[in-house]
């Protein structure tokens, strides 16, 4: 009997660190097995990272941002612009983190007084304004031409243009976000955010400051996303407004997390793989219309699996463990 329960509990009984280690090591084997598909692996993992960062605010705090391309762009452009002055990418990333954090702080301080869809609408507007600035302020961003990375210094003797090095750097980024997710699930901030997501008024009655909780999540999301932006630049070797700052990037980031399952730690990662692979398979058919996969999947998920893939799986698991408990959905 005891054996039975420990088996069916599956995910919930595996200690978080062990689960994290298993997932990270499994993904870490990818370059050894699929060595010829390194580009696919890096882009899937990178977007998983973006989606995991999105989930901090979108999943745990329930505030859907459709403007995360801004932070991707800031991260990438900080590294690219400072690179021209001979400053190493890791310092550029730090600057990107700082700028993103400040922007998120200012923007959140202004917009989190509003509720409902207003925050989402403001993210789209801010993202568009930043894109227009990047497109038109040639002196800073080289306009639509974008910035190229020439040579890169080596990091601890590793070549940053080596796909395998890039893969493991991105994996490190994803692992950090997953670890952060595990921490958030049990931390005070995580409970604050969930309380705010479920009911702002009740959260306030309990002494939580909703605006501050959301602001913290927003700043963290911005900072994490901008690290990913810096890594994306290393991978692409160049950056321009049409790649990094357009609305489809923001939409992709949000949809990966939602399809995978919001507020479930591993949801965005699962979502990135579940979408990334069909997108790659249909690439030759769909060409520029690759967002069709996202559109179809998001509609299907919203209608049939409103909690996302991982969220629905967790619910199914919970019901199996607690057959007598009736749980209203």
């Amino acid at each position, binding site marked *: 009997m005891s054996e039975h329960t420990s088996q069916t509990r599956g995910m919930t009984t595996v200690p978080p660190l062990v689960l994290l280690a298993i997932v990270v090591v499994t993904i870490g084997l990818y370059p050894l097995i699929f060595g010829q598909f390194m580009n696919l692996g890096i882009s899937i993992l990178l977007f998983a990272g973006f989606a995991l960062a999105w989930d901090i605010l979108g999943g745990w705090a329930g505030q859907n941002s459709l403007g995360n391309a801004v932070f991707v762009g800031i991260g990438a452009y900080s590294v690219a612009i400072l690179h021209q002055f001979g400053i190493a990418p890791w310092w550029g990333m730090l600057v990107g983190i700082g700028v993103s954090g400040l922007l998120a702080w200012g923007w959140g301080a202004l917009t989190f007084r509003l509720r409902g*869809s*207003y925050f989402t609408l403001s993210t789209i507007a801010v993202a568009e*304004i930043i894109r*227009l600035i990047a497109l*038109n302020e040639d002196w800073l961003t080289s306009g639509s031409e974008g910035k190229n990375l020439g040579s890169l210094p080596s990091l601890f003797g590793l070549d940053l243009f080596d796909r395998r090095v890039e893969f493991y750097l991105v994996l490190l980024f994803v692992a950090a976000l997953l670890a952060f997710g595990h921490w958030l699930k049990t931390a005070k901030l995580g409970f604050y955010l969930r309380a705010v997501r479920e009911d702002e008024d009740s959260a306030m009655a309990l002494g939580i400051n909703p605006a501050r909780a959301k602001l913290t999540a927003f700043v963290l999301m911005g900072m994490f996303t901008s690290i990913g932006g810096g890594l994306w630049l290393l991978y692409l070797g160049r950056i321009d407004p049409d790649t990094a700052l357009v609305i489809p990037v923001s939409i992709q980031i949000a*949809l990966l997390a939602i399809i995978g399952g919001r507020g479930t730690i591993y949801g965005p990662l699962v979502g990135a793989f579940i979408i990334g692979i069909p997108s790659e398979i249909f690439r030759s058919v769909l060409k520029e219309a690759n967002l069709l996969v996202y559109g179809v999947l998001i*509609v299907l998920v919203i*209608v049939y699996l409103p909690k996302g893939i991982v969220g629905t799986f967790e619910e199914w698991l919970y019901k199996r463990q607690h057959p007598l408990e009736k749980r209203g959905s």
Partner: protein
Amino acid sequence: MEFFSQGLQGLIDGLLTGGVYAMIGAGMSLIFGVMRVVNFGHGDFVILGMYAAFASNQYLKLDPYVSLLVVLPLAFVFGFVLHRAILAKLLGANDQTTKLATLGLGLIATNLVLLQFGTEPKTVYTEYATNAWRIPLFGLELRISEVRFYAVIITALLIFGLNMMLYRTELGRAIRATAQNRLGAELQGVDTKKIYAIVYGIGVVLAAAAGVLLLPLLSATPTLGSVFTNKSFVVTILGGLGSLPGAIGGGLILGVVESLGSSLFPLMNSHFGANYRDAYGLIIFLIVLLFRPEGLFGRTVKRV
């Protein structure tokens, strides 16, 4: 003097374009007012209208304005079926969920268009596309573009028709009742699910009509969808979400701001001009969102 004449010309162009923006916003506002859902796919339906007109011009050799007669009924059926088949399943869910579903539907629409017609901009050739009436006024010569003028006239007719429908017919009364209180309307025998589907259909019709009217002015590109969704947000937020007269005011304001911004700024500083055309509207949008989220007109969020 140049500043003044440029300004006046900008104002006229802005009002004419604003009329079409008003129609896009009216559809969005109607959907929000009745269903309480922000329609994130709205701009994509504008694109769908554009391409429907393009296709009927290409294959049926119809003039864009004549194609309205074909496109609009199709748009209504499309919106109605879309709601019946998908959005109606989400009626109990929270608005965040429905919002994401509309976003997904928009993505599907745009990307199907992209798949069929490719990324290259498509234009329709009409003889009158570049015609303009010249009106002398106090020694200034003002140009009124023929296409924009027709667009405004047709917009006015459609909005007038919508208004008559809402306030003079039994269906309109049912729609307004559903907007005010869904349960109350249901108790009076209104099939509110059907009303929702009808309203969504009307919203799609207004978006598609705007697309058709813009086709002679712009070239159709599938990726413009998000631009139009943005514009409809700006229009509806300026006017107050859910308010029909507000949407008209908001549309006109957006048109004028964009047009004046791009025609007057170059006289002072060539850098900010047409380059930032789309940014002016967004900046005003953010300011309104921050300081008067209920919209420029009206004290509270008004419903249809």
